[in-house]
């Protein structure tokens, strides 16, 4: 069956005859991920992630007072998230004004983190998460969400679980894990996933592209596997900061 490719172009060879992707990875392989916790002096918590070519800094402040006061909630704390790209983070210099894309991603990441953060312990206050994309290379929202979780934990904010994130998708007619920039641009589908392993909950999920129902189910399963791999790296980053000194 020929699948309608939807609104996408696909004239680039994204998968060779041996099932190897344009950056040399296998279909179920993620790019290299390194995370470092506690990289900033002034933020209450922080983390730096390199996820393939993505380079992202996360900083957390709070719980702190909310101004103006009527924005606060007497029953619970609120979470505020800003996802922001530096002008030099993408191919052509990005206009510094916040784009509608950045505003939407900020909202989506906020909603992915909310189930994990015990905001009810901090009524009337706000926890602010600032995500700075220093270099973008496909999959920034997942990588930013990964860094945000670690920075929240580094800030000592009580959490039910870390949220780990990784995209799956489809390119060259194969389901693939961790979609890179070329695969996002020229591939068939991109599905970013955010996941809380202990609670088994998917808290971020988006899809652009065309998938059959069967592919859809498999794609989620593949993405969740990727999330779990990132989860180990997140935990190591926190272990490294808090226990390595005691070695």
């Amino acid at each position, binding site marked *: 069956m020929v699948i309608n490719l939807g609104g996408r172009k696909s004239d680039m060879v994204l998968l060779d005859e041996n099932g190897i992707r344009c950056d040399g990875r296998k279909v179920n392989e993620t790019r290299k991920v390194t995370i470092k916790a506690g990289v900033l002096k002034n933020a209450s918590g922080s983390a730096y992630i390199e996820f393939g070519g993505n380079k992202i800094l996360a900083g957390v402040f709070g719980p702190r007072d909310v101004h103006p006061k009527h924005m606060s909630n007497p029953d619970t704390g609120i979470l505020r998230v800003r996802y922001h790209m530096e002008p030099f983070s993408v191919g052509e210099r990005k206009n510094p004004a916040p784009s509608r894309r950045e505003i939407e991603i900020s909202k*989506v990441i906020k909603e992915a983190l909310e189930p994990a953060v015990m905001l009810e312990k901090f009524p009337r206050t706000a926890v602010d998460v600032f995500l700075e994309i220093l270099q973008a290379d496909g999959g920034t929202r997942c990588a930013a969400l990964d860094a945000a979780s670690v920075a929240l934990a580094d800030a000592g904010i009580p959490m039910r679980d870390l949220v780990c994130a990784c995209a799956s998708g489809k390119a060259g007619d194969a389901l693939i894990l961790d979609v890179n920039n070329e695969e996002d641009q020229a591939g068939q589908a991109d599905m970013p996933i955010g996941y809380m392993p202990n609670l088994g909950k*998917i808290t971020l999920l988006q899809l652009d*592209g065309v998938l059959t129902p069967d592919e859809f189910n498999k794609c989620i399963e593949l993405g969740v596997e990727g999330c779990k791999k990132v989860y180990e790296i997140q935990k190591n980053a926190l272990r490294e900061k808090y226990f390595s000194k005691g070695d």
Partner: protein
Amino acid sequence: MTDFSIIDKLKRSKILDLLQEGKRIDGRALDEHRTLDVVTGVIPHANGSARVRLGDTEVVAGVKIQPDRPFPDTGDRGIFICTAEILPLAHPSAETGPPQPPVIELARVVDRGIRESGMIDLSQCVLEENKSVIGIFSDNVVTDHDGNLFDTCSYASVAAIMTSKMPKWEMKDDKPVLVEGEEGDTPITTIPVSVTMGRIGEFILADPNIDEWACLDARITITTNSDGNIVALQKGGKDGFTYEQIVKCSEISISSGAKIREIIKKAVGETQ
């Protein structure tokens, strides 16, 4: 886990009680959309238009088709842009001023559902490659807000696009000039249908109305094309879904989407 106002908490407890008896507050089945009413051609000056009521939510969509400059990296395709605005007369809580994040998300989700389905064959919308292409703008305005704007805007834009007529232009002296009196159909390849569902506790509700909407744990919008494949998805709300819940939602989106696609096709055919 999620937090709501006192009123919303009372609403939620009432709605949950009913759900445990298998009922919704307005008597619908869990996977049932409200009554869908589609009227096309309501803005004759636009190139295509539709007024859609989904229950008591109402949206007017107008399509404008006009020459434009292509985006730098896609000089071989026309431009498609879909917007959404909640008019202040739609609800006492609606606000004027610059669009807030929920409205930006609304517009972008409706836009992506149509764009990613490849509904319009944009390769047929080029006047001169890298220089002049046809731009198709589908603007949705919400005139009455009773919940689930995602689907209502999506159906309005899809109906407006399906009934739109595309004027003809010729390039003269490097500029597009309208050819009076000639127009063709907009090149349609598939009919995308979005289905929005909410989760309250363990229950999945299709097309939540405004009272249900106020106390959702999480929501999901899944768009399918005429082939029954999934072309776009957006999860929202303060909590998550299990894998099983998402698979269930995808199944509802395919079965309900097929029914709604028939309603839209019928409405569009009647006025064409």
